[in-house]
């Protein structure tokens, strides 16, 4: 019957559809399988794979990459001045420098015989190219640069509008020296070309970045032939990847995994105190944190020692309000930091008129309860900041302050900060160039989003910024640390430790206090 024929046709059609689906998925799988086998066959050469949390979203000097992109940059690009693992300034691409007029003019003498990855010579022109107007460094921080001039092919002169300790700034991997051949004739970026120990090989978006050894590296010859950075956004997944051997090394190990990894056979954990200090940034232009008493109350209510020892499992050092990590220059070792004093926190609030009159355990003033929002970044630091934020929330609740935690991506936080539409932000340290205490600028009323304005503070920062005299600087920076502790434009929580973990066949790694660099010099893979 015709009807039957029709039906048969339908089933044949159905069958083919199903077949198409199956073969499509099989096809995809087949391809993947092929690449996997290719990768396995090269195991013998010395390679290192490193788990990082973000892909590199920019390679050019117009913008510093977000997240962990810096660790990849630090393999490809180098800076004029470097820091050793203990943050002492050492020569980088410049072999020496001098300032004839106490910090307004800086003359750098460049190393000889260095070439970029593509063979173009490293010279004064490259330095000038790297500090052109479009460079991020010039836009963001080194606005006082009046000019960068070539004196001869090996000498560069920086002229500044005001005295600055320029070499400190130039240690940061955010302003490296790039080859003018990074861009084409129209000035469009082509590919990353630097002088570093590894050169760019390939990138698979959101997955991995492959670097290969720079055979002509001017410094210590790298032991590794290839370094692969694998993008693994979640901290806990990164740890798993290390444990299962999917990667050889991971950065930003979450604190709660450290003790377990430390006792685990076959895994080595490297830790060192860094220049970063987590802090609570207040919006001092908006009620309630426009009131000093409320900020001080927060500072009294939070037990940074308990948070460090329990939430962060004893990793890092409780800051107790001290702005500067002990590894920073001019960090005052004699500073008397705060300790938790819940009674004082309550007294401060009630003296300022914040009282709990309706018995809901939240204090009010003029009928308005003390409710604040704490912004926490969802990004790289979330695994550490999420439990910290909750501990802070609970401690503030004891003092009568109700806190709501909101998780957002970094960019979204910047938006709110820009609009002044926030109460508190849990931040990791920033504005840090090596050990140099530039960070204080963060609360300066002229800083773009300080949300704090205090004439005394501004004067202290300006004075410290304008002098090159070390004793004077020390005195001023000590005064600033006292000031921050007392006035609480921000409450400093924990001096952070940098944590790197690697399988124990990865040898020769030395951890540095400096955050943005991953120094793979001397790292090798031990053959079994």
């Amino acid at each position, binding site marked *: 019957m015709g009807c039957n024929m029709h039906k048969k046709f339908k089933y044949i059609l159905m069958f083919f559809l199903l077949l198409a689906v199956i073969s499509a998925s099989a096809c995809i799988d087949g391809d993947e399988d092929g690449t996997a086998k290719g990768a396995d066959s090269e195991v013998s050469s010395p390679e290192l794979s490193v788990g990082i949390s973000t892909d590199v979203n920019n390679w050019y000097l117009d913008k510093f990459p977000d997240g962990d992109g810096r660790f990849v940059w630090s393999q490809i690009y180098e800076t004029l001045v470097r820091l050793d693992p203990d943050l002492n300034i050492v020569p980088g691409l410049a072999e020496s420098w001098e300032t004839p007029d106490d910090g307004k003019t800086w003359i750098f003498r460049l190393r000889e015989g260095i070439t970029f990855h593509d063979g173009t010579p490293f010279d004064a022109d490259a330095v000038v190219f790297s500090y052109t107007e479009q460079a991020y460094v010039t836009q963001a921080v080194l606005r006082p640069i009046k000019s960068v001039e070539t004196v001869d092919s090996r000498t560069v002169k920086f002229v500044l509008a005001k005295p600055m300790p320029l070499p400190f700034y130039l240690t940061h991997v955010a302003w490296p020296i790039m080859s003018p051949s990074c861009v084409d004739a129209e000035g469009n970026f082509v590919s990353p070309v630097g002088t570093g120990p590894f050169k760019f090989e390939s990138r698979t978006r959101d997955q991995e970045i492959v670097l290969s050894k720079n055979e002509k590296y001017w410094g210590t010859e790298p032991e590794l032939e290839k370094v692969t950075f694998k993008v693994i956004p979640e901290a806990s997944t990164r740890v798993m990847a290390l444990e299962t051997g999917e990667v050889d090394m991971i950065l930003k190990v979450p604190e*709660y995994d450290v003790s377990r990894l430390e006792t685990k056979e076959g895994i080595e954990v490297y830790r060192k105190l860094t220049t970063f200090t987590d802090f609570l940034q207040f919006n001092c232009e908006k009620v309630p944190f426009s009131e000093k008493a409320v900020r001080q109350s927060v500072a009294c209510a939070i037990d940074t020692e*308990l948070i460090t020892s*329990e939430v962060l499992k004893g990793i890092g050092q409780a800051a107790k309000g001290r702005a500067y990590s002990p590894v920073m220059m001019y960090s005052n070792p004699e500073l008397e930091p705060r300790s938790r004093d819940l009674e004082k926190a309550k007294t401060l609030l009630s003296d300022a008129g914040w009282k709990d009159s309706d018995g809901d355990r939240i204090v009010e003033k003029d009928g308005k309860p003390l409710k604040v929002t704490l912004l926490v970044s969802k990004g790289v630091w979330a695994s550490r900041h*999420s439990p910290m934020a*909750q501990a802070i929330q609970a401690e503030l609740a004891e003092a009568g302050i109700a806190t709501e*935690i909101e998780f957002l991506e970094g960019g979204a936080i910047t938006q709110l900060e820009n609009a002044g539409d926030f109460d508190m932000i849990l931040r990791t340290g920033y504005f840090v160039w090596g050990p140099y205490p530039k960070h204080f600028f963060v609360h300066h009323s002229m800083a773009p989003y300080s949300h704090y304005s205090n004439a005394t503070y501004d004067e202290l920062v300006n004075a410290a910024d304008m002098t090159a005299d070390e004793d004077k600087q020390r005195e001023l920076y000590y005064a600033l640390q006292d000031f921050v502790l007392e006035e609480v434009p921000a409450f400093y929580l924990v001096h952070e430790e940098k944590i790197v973990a690697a399988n124990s066949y990865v040898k020769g790694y030395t951890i540095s206090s400096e955050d943005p660099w991953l120094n793979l010099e001397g790292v090798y893979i031990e053959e079994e």
Partner: protein
Amino acid sequence: MTDMTESRCINMTEKTAEKMTGEISEKKTGKKAEKTAGKMIGNIAGIMIGNIAGKMIGNITRKKQVQEFRKNRLAVLGVLLIAFLAFLALFAPLVSPHDPLEQKLERGLEGPSLEYPFGTDNLGRCIFSRVVYGTQVSLGIGVLVVTATSIAGTLLGILSGYKGGLFDEIVMRGVDIVLAFPNIILALVIAGLLGSGFFNVVLALSLTQWPVYTRLVRAQVLSLKKQAFVEAARALRASNFYIMRRHILPNCMGSVVVLGTLEIAHVIIFAAALSFLGLGIPMPTAEWGSMLKEGIPYLLSAPHLTFFPGLMIMLTVLAFNFAGDGLRDCLDTGTGVMA
């Protein structure tokens, strides 16, 4: 997934409706319809909660159906589980040994003990107490969303099916548009726009779940309209409102109750998923989805952080699925609901 099978079944019946719709809308159009509509919403809502619920139970209590239901062991188990969960929710303060928000930082990540039956989380909070309090949140969201959406969805469905015409067209296109977004995705985006919070979650889920009822009820109304008893009532010049109230609504209630029960299961999973992604209930409220999320970093060292909240979600959802399945079998509503 419920709505998809339904949409299939209902799409078919929709066609049946088209011709009829034309006839009816010609007869009873315009202002009169609108007037009654307003009155009806109030009335029907009242009836639903009182009268009709009674009727429904009356239906179920018919001996044979009760026996049927009892025979279905899974359904009985489901109802018992629901009763138990409701008990936990209502008496959470009595059942839980600790304040669910109280942190003892120095006692973090402890395994189960007498003091902490399910152990403690990373901040030293009692997981047992948090799990118990989580019942309030999950059941609360489930019941609120299902109550709101089933009333609104049923009303729209009845009006749409009975009135037909432009109203029907508009409502059904609204349904189509909402269903054009994969369920959880629309809820996710709405929650993302509104920000986290209990009522935002309820709102986000309500906005996405109502069409499920509208489709189901409308299809039933269309077939009921052809039934002899409705025709008879119409011949006796009963008012539209009377017909809807006395003949249509009671006959739809069975499937709405079945669907509602299964929907509670869905809504609870969706709400937990939103919190799991960080768009649901804000911290530090004890909520199963966010507890799971918080526990991920400790998956290896302290799996009890993720085990218990997950188990609770599963048990709760299972309970409602068992009960809903059993209800459907014994009422034999033929709703085509499957989940």
